C-alpha cells in the first residue's frame, strides 16, 4: 500500500520522507529459496531482513569506514579527560606569556597545535570538544526522536482526526526551511546555552521523524500480523507498542544516524550566527569553529582543526547511515 493514502499531494519534502518510510526494513522474514544441485527445491527457512542486512554490511567498506570513525569518535569522547594532555578549560601560563592582542601563539613544546584565542591548549580543547559535540549530537537526536515517535505513534496508531491534526502540524513545520526554523527557535531563548541549541536542533527533526514513523506505522496497521493479533483479542495498546511500533522503527533508526551528522553541523551554523552556546568553558567543535571564524584572516588554523573534526565525524555518521539505509532497502537486495 502507499504510505500516505490520505495525502493527494504528489511531491515535496513530505513525499521524500514517505518514500524513505516505505523502503527501509520492517523486520519481516523473506523466504530465501535455493535450488540445490539435485534440482530439488530446498527452503532454507528464510533469512530475516536484519540478518541479511548485517551479512552485507560486514563486507561493505563504506559501512566499515563509517563505523570505525564513529567508534573512534565515541571512544575519544568517553576517554577525553584522560587523553587530553592539558586541562582544556585552563589558560596555560606557557602560552599566555606569548599571547598579545596581535598574536595567538602557534605550536610550542608540549602544545603541538598551539594556543586558542585565550591561551588555552588547542589540542586539549579539540579532544575535550569531542565529548560536548557527542552530547549535542546525541541529545538533539534523542529529543527529536522522542518528539517524532510520540507524534508519529499518535498519528499512525489512531488514524482519523488525530492523524489529520498531527500531520497538519507536521506539514506546517516542514514548510519552513530547516535552518531558519532552528534559528527562529534558538532566538526565543533569553539566554542561549548548550540546551537551547540542542532543543532548537531537535525541534527541526521532530516533523521528519514523525512523518517517517507514521508512514511505516500505517503500513503495519494493514499487515497480516496485526490483523492476526487483533483476531486473537490482543489489546489495542499491546498491538501498538508490541507489534506495530517495533516493526516500524527501522527507517527511523536509519534516519537518526544521519541526524547525528546534521545536528553537529547545525550546532556549528548556530554558533556562527551568534546563537550558539556563549559559555566556552566546555569546548564544543561547532562553537569553536563558530568563534574561530572571527580570527580566520590571521589564524586560519583555529578554524581549520575543529572544522576538520566536524567534517570527519559528520562523514562517519553519514557513511554509516547511508549504507544502513541501502542494506535495509528491500529493493537493493537483488
Amino acid at each position: 500500500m502507499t504510505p500516505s493514502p490520505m495525502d493527494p499531494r504528489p511531491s515535496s519534502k513530505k513525499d521524500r520522507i514517505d518514500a524513505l518510510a516505505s523502503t527501509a526494513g520492517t523486520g519481516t522474514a523473506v523466504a530465501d529459496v535455493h535450488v540445490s544441485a539435485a534440482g530439488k527445491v530446498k527452503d532454507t527457512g528464510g533469512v530475516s531482513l536484519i540478518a541479511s542486512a548485517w551479512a552485507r554490511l560486514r563486507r561493505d567498506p563504506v559501512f566499515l569506514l563509517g563505523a570505525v570513525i564513529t567508534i573512534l569518535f565515541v571512544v575519544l569522547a568517553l576517554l577525553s579527560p584522560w587523553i587530553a594532555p592539558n586541562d582544556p578549560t585552563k589558560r596555560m601560563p606557557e602560552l599566555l606569556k606569548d599571547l598579545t592582542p596581535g598574536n595567538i601563539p602557534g605550536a610550542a613544546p608540549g602544545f603541538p597545535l598551539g594556543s586558542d584565542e585565550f591561551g588555552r591548549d588547542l589540542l586539549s580543547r579539540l579532544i575535550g570538544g569531542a565529548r560536548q559535540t557527542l552530547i549535542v549530537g546525541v541529545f538533539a537526536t534523542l529529543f527529536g526522536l522522542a518528539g517524532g515517535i510520540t507524534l508519529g505513534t499518535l498519528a499512525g496508531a489512531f488514524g482519523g482526526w488525530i492523524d489529520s491534526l498531527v500531520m497538519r502540524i507536521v506539514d506546517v513545520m516542514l514548510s519552513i526551511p530547516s535552518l531558519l526554523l532552528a534559528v527562529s527557535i534558538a532566538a526565543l531563548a533569553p539566554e542561549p546555552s548548550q540546551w537551547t541549541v540542542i532543543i532548537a536542533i531537535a525541534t527541526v527533526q521532530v516533523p521528519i521523524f514523525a512523518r517517517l514513523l507514521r508512514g511505516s506505522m500505517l503500513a503495519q496497521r494493514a499487515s497480516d500480523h496485526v490483523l492476526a493479533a487483533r483476531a486473537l483479542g490482543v489489546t489495542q495498546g499491546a498491538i501498538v507498542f508490541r507489534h506495530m511500533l517495533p516493526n516500524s522503527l527501522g527507517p527511523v533508526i536509519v534516519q537518526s544516524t544521519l541526524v547525528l551528522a546534521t545536528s553537529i553541523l547545525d550546532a556549528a551554523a548556530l554558533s556562527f550566527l551568534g546563537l550558539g552556546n556563549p559559555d566556552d568553558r566546555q569546548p564544543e567543535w561547532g562553537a569553536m569553529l563558530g568563534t574561530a571564524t572571527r580570527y580566520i584572516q590571521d589564524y586560519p588554523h583555529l578554524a581549520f582543526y575543529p572544522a576538520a573534526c566536524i567534517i570527519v565525524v559528520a562523514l562517519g555518521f553519514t557513511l554509516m547511515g547511508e549504507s544502513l539505509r541501502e542494506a535495509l532497502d528491500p529493493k537493493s537486495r537483488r
Partner: protein
Amino acid sequence: MLRFIVRRLVQMVGVMVVLSLLLFLWLRALPGGTVSAILGERATPASRAAMEEAFGLDQPVHIQYFKFVGRVLQGDFGPSTSVLPGTDALDIFLQRFPATIELSFFAMVIAIALGIPLGYFAARRRATFFDNASVIVSLVGVAVPVFFLGFLLKYIFAIKLGWLPVSGRQDGQLEATRVTGFFVLDGLLTREFDASWDALKHLVLPSITLASVPFAVIFRITRAAVLEVLDEDYIRTAESKGLTAKVIRGRHILRNAMLPVTTTIGLQLGALLAGAVLTERVFSWGGLGEALALSFERRDYPVLQVVILAAAMIYVIVNLLVDIMYAVIDPRVRTR
C-alpha cells in the same frame, strides 16, 4: 489540471494562515520584545505603558493578531530599529531582494549543471571508480559546514591567491548604473560590460559555496533515479528494439528519471534561503540572508518579520510551482 491547481492554492492559503499565526506568536515570545528593543535600558514603567498603547499591545491578543495581519497585508512592517535605523523594513527587504535572487540563481545553475550530468554518468558507470569517487565527493559536500567552505574558498582564492574578490557584489569604484538590482543583468542592459564582468567575478566564490549542498543532493537523487529507471523493463525493450543510445537516454531514461529530480530541485530552492544566511554572512553579500543574520544579532524585529515572512512565502510558493510542474511532466499525478 485547473482543479489540481485550485486545490493546491487552497491548501497554500491554509498553510499561510497558520504560518502568520505562528509568526505572530513567535514575535510575541521573543525575549525583550518590541518595546524593550526600542526603549532599551532607559525604559520606565510609564514610557513602557505609553509605548505599549502606541503599538496597541494593551489590546486583547486576537485583536492584535488581526491588526498584525492587516499591517502585513499592507506591507507595513514599521521602520528598522538597528540594521539601518529609521529605514522602512520593507524598503530594506526590497533593496536586498535582488542580491539574494542573483546569488541563488547562479548557485542553482551550478548545482544543476554539475549534479544532473554527474549523477547520470555515475549511475551508468555504477560501481566503477568514477561512480565511487563522485558519491564520496557528494557525501563530503554534505559533511562540510557551508560557512566553513565559504571561508576556505575565500582564504585560498581571494586572500592567498588573489584571483577573485574577497567580498561584496561589485567593485564600488565602477559606479555602475543600477536598473534592476541584478548587477550582472544591469551591466548587460546598460552596456557596461566591465560592470557585469566584475559582478560575475564577485559571484564565483559565494555561488560555489551556496551550491555545495544542493549539488550533492541533486547528484544523489539523479543517480538513484537513473539507477531505478535503468532496471525497468521498458529500457530492455527499447534496447532490444534497437533504438539508438541517444533516444534511449533522452526519451526513456532521463525523461523518467527527471521526475524525482524536479521535486528535489524545488525543495533545494527553498533550502537555498537557509544556506544564503550563512553564505552571505561570510562574503558580506548585502542580501536578505545577511539582513536576517544581522537582524537576529541586533534584535531588529521589523526587519526580522519581513524577511522570515518572505522566506516562508517564497518556500511555499516554490513548492506550489514544483507541484504544478510535476503535474505537467507526469500526467498520472493530476488524476490522483
